[in-house]
């Protein structure tokens, strides 16, 4: 009989092996993040010291000051942080709103061409941004929007995945509620705003966080569109700061830590939307 029992020796060995692998994997994966946090408060001699001491001997807060002021003392990074916030938050808001609008139209109305519209929007998911970035850049230049918030935001106002997510969510929204509102003489736009949009909470939160993170991470587009230092976003500033030979290692990690704080704060408070967002994506692609 090869039947496994609850407390047999192989079962216990197997279970402890599982724990050893999982915990060491989690620890190893966490090492670089711990390194960033520690090194952001160390002086560069200690960061590059052999053997490496993990904890700062006395926290060097000047790193953060230098990160914010920059090597040239122009204090451009705070402006870049503001840019990242403006761009990411506007795109998160517009993605949720416009995706809900389109998703609602596709989920709750029957009209000719509806399937074509839906399939057409879904097909755009296959277009890599790298393929369309040059035509997009030329559009932005023609509109005179280079080096402006408009140029940074416009191509990302909404995305196909958002439409998909909202449509799926609203398909299960009770149509009786909409009909009841229509009988009461409620106008269609008002039905959307006061009934549909108000109840799109969980899908909206998942989508907003996804859109925010994508833009917080976006390097390629700001490199193209933001020519002046004032209009750069955080990733573009990081590349510039890291490329400067005079940059102090501790200050580099302070920059990294500052860039990571908002997303980590979101992650720790709303982790279910992060982990859920990942799986929603897989459901969408299947």
């Amino acid at each position, binding site marked *: 009989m090869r039947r496994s029992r609850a407390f047999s020796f192989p079962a216990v060995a197997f279970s402890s092996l599982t724990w050893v692998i999982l915990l060491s994997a989690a620890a190893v994966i966490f090492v670089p*993040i711990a390194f960033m946090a520690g090194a952001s408060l160390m002086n560069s001699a200690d960061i590059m010291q052999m053997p490496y001491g993990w904890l700062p001997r006395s926290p060097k807060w000047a790193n953060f000051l230098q990160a914010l002021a920059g090597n040239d003392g122009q204090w451009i990074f705070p402006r870049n942080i503001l840019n990242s916030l403006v761009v990411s938050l506007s795109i998160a808001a517009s993605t949720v709103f416009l995706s809900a609008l389109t998703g609602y139209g596709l989920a709750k109305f029957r009209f000719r061409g509806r399937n074509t519209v839906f399939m057409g929007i879904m097909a755009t998911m296959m277009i890599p941004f*790298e393929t369309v970035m*040059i*035509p997009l850049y030329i559009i932005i230049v023609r509109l005179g929007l280079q080096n402006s918030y408009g140029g940074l935001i416009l191509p990302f106002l909404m995305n196909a995945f958002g439409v998909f997510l909202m449509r799926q969510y609203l398909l299960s929204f009770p149509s009786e509620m909409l009909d009841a509102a229509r009988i009461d003489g409620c106008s269609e736009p008002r039905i959307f705003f006061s009934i549909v949009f108000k109840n799109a909470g969980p899908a909206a939160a998942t989508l907003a966080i996804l859109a925010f993170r994508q833009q917080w991470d976006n390097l390629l587009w700001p490199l193209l569109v933001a020519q002046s230092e004032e209009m750069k976003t955080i990733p573009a500033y990081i590349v510039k700061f890291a490329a400067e030979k005079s940059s102090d290692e501790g200050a580099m990690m302070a920059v990294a830590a500052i860039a990571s704080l908002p997303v*980590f704060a979101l992650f720790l408070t709303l982790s279910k939307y992060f982990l859920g967002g990942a799986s929603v994506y897989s459901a969408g692609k299947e």
Partner: protein
Amino acid sequence: MNKGRSGESLERKTARWGWFFVAPGVLFFSAFSLYPILNAFWTSFFNKKLLSLKPPKFIGLDNYGKVLSSPDFWNSVGATAIFAAGAFVPMFLLSLLFAVLVTSRTRWRRGIQMALYSPAVLSSVVAALIWLLMFDPRGLANQMANALMRTPGIDHKWLADATMVRISTIVVYVWKYVGYFTILFVTGIGKIPQSVNEAAVIDGANAFQRFFRITLPLLKPTTVLVSVMILIQCLKTFSTQYLFTQRGAPLGPINVLTLNIYNTALRDQNLGRASVMAVLLFAFMLLLSWTQIRFSRSGELES
């Protein structure tokens, strides 16, 4: 008759409102997806310079010929292929392993998932920057590698040697995304009905048999999906290579297609040739997506 007519008008009315709600989306995707992709194809047939006032000249397939016969392009194809293959294998195997182990436990499941996922929360540039310092000759990567391999005092040239810099970019990527794909596998495993596994336990199947005979076959749609997503993700890599080369790492070994497109368009200002590479990248990704749709369909039919 009367009733029929009012039904018809109601239908027409809902159709109008349907278009009303869909219109902003249709406009947006026409302007910012459909037009640009057509424009990219169109531009690939022209001799077009960025910010040039001269009207672009139609040169047919000339750009394609030039790109396909340039060693620089094939070097990029090679760099991208090595990166994608090198990142795919560890990423796929590790995320599958972690997912199977995570789902076999009930305690601390969320905490471990969050720890594995945490690098995916960071920006790609931040991830690359952290590793940039760890890969410094005096940095942590050398110390750890030497401690593991018992080779004190050796510099592995993580950012200077051609092979090592390829490995370094792969390490950054696997580290950043392994947790993300673990979560996808966890979701996929969660969809497998528990009863099948329980039946197998009663029949005396051990853990390995259950994994290879039950979990793996039933996980096929997720496996195909994750494989394609990893590959597409790897083809789109840009930030790590860009940052590393900005800090003086050799360009050749890590000049992946996206970086080459960027440099050809912005540094060389040659939009025609950049568009050719962009179109070829698109064609390849389309092929991957098509494979995924085909395979997951056949998976559905079998089950």
